[in-house]
């Protein structure tokens, strides 16, 4: 079969740590404009899948095709330059820099050593930073040191740092962890907005939130796919109920 219609096509992906298969011959396909949520109990291999896609962990076997790139052959920064962005589970921002500087650093220009020395903050860059900041609800916090942001705002900032790169595949590891109800609603709004024109892969535990945002849900269990489909069919799947209630 041909993979090229999908933005992301993972086939037979396996990674084993000292014989333990954290991800076991996984197949996963992602369309353009799709927002996919991966759920599963602790240790199911959700984060490992993201690690494999973004190159943080090297796979034992299998393939990850992103557009025309074979990601398993690329270094981390090459994967990012190909158009993959990834948010980490705990907000990973530069605490000692301002919100503005965080976004500026993430702007996809001047990525080489000499490029970064010669990098100039042009009006276009400035406009783009402000545009993204407004999108992630931080338009008024541009000058604030990012360490002073609330936990939820830090999550948004990291999403913004990815958005400014305009990735075609956006991977978010628990984007609403530690957020208030209001912040969750805003994030829901943000995610539905940003999945237009790109693919989004989300890992999330909060089932209500998943039901609101997911186009399709994939349930992982012990490194394998247990079920896949829309939220309702997954929730009624006896295997899924078994796994979740069993824990």
């Amino acid at each position: 079969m041909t993979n090229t219609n999908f933005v992301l096509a993972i086939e037979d992906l396996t990674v084993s740590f000292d014989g333990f298969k954290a991800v076991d011959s996984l197949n996963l396909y992602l369309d353009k404009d799709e927002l996919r949520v991966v759920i599963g109990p602790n240790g199911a291999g959700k984060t490992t899948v993201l690690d494999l896609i973004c190159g943080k962990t090297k796979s034992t076997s299998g393939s990850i095709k992103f557009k025309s790139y074979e990601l398993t052959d690329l270094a981390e920064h090459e994967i990012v330059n190909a158009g993959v962005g990834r948010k980490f589970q705990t907000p990973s921002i530069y605490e000692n820099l301002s919100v503005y500087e965080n976004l500026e650093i993430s702007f996809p220009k001047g990525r080489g050593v000499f490029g970064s020395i010669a990098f100039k903050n042009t009006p276009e860059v400035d406009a783009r930073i402000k545009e993204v900041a407004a999108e992630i609800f931080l338009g008024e916090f541009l000058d604030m040191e990012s360490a002073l942001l609330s936990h939820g705002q830090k999550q948004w900032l990291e999403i913004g740092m990815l958005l400014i790169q305009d990735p075609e595949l956006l991977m978010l590891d628990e984007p609403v962890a530690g957020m208030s109800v209001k912040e969750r609603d805003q994030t829901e709004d943000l995610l539905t907005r940003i999945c237009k024109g790109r693919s989004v892969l989300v890992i999330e535990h909060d089932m209500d939130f998943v039901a609101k945002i997911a186009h399709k849900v994939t349930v992982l269990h012990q490194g394998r796919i247990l079920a896949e489909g829309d939220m309702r069919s997954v929730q009624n799947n006896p295997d899924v109920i078994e796994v979740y209630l069993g824990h």
Partner: protein
Amino acid sequence: MVMNFMYERILGGKNGAIGIAILAVLIIIILPLALDLFRLNLVGKYLTYAFAAVSLVLLWGYGGILSLGQGVFFGLGGYCMAMFLKIEASDPVTTSIQSTPGIPDFMDWNQLTELPWFWVPFNSFSFTILAVLLVPTIFAFIIGFSMFKRRVGGVYFAIITQIIAVILTVLIVGQQGYTGGINGITDLKTIHGWDIRDDSSKYILYFINAFLLFGVIFLSRYILTSKFGRLLLAMKDKEDRVRFSGYDVSNFKIFVFCLSAMISAIGGAMFTLQVGFMSPSFVGIVPSIEMVIYAAVGGRMSLIGVVYGTLLVNFGKTIFSETFPELWLYLMGALFIGVVMFFPNGLAGIWQKHGTKLVACVKKMQCVSHVKAMIETRRAGSKPAARLNAENVSGE
């Protein structure tokens, strides 16, 4: 536009410009006027160490990469310069009593009969200048490439650089015939006939050294205020985030390591010129760690602060090692621990915390009448006096 660029990026805005100006007045005007030539030459020597301290601001302060081997690059720069001077000092006439005239004396003592191949290009002064800049940089590139591409960092990197310092010292000491051994390369005299030991030459070299130091500070400031500088800070904080934002982190580390090597090497070459010799005791562990102490005491985030740190520690060393020679090393160790524990930002940090308050205080005295007026109003029943106080502090 150009002026603005100069002001913001190279001088570092208002505060940076004032800091540079004060340091420049001290080094270029006050010290040459106040000190006799012997003392000034000593200051010149200390200022060559300041190059290494500045290089550590880039590498350690901003990059978070602790190198315990800056002496290696300082030494390589110094040795390159010394090789040129030694060849010129060993003309056939002055060395006519040797069994092979025309080669450096230590080679003759070690039964060498001709100049080794790697010494030959050092006949040329322009080659020597290039070598001073490039040999340490290429060496740093090889070390940096092999370590940072494999993601060796932190303590491991520090230990490996320290080991390299030891290896190079052992190598220099062991290869007496080629390097001058433990004594180093001594009796250096002239550059194209210009005697570096003259009083006037010593002044000239002092000023060349001072201007080069400011040049290096300006270059470093330019780089640190660019996106590159912010990326260094970002890497120090969250290396993975930088990597997964599309940057090849190792390239940035290799570059800053090479740059720091080149800066240290300039210091080393100026050391040889001003002091008149180069020896393995400026290559090994002790000088390398001392350089880290200069940076720590001065404030490893401050390009200006480390210059003061270098001067202060070295004056301390000169004074104390004359009176209590055996105590000095302990004192130096205690100083390092003390600074790291209580003043992590060194002198620059203390200045920022207390010095600015001092300035605010002085300014307050200028508007003493203003304060009096405010006190009057407070007596009258309103209470804006407290606000005035807060404004004076935060207004700085």
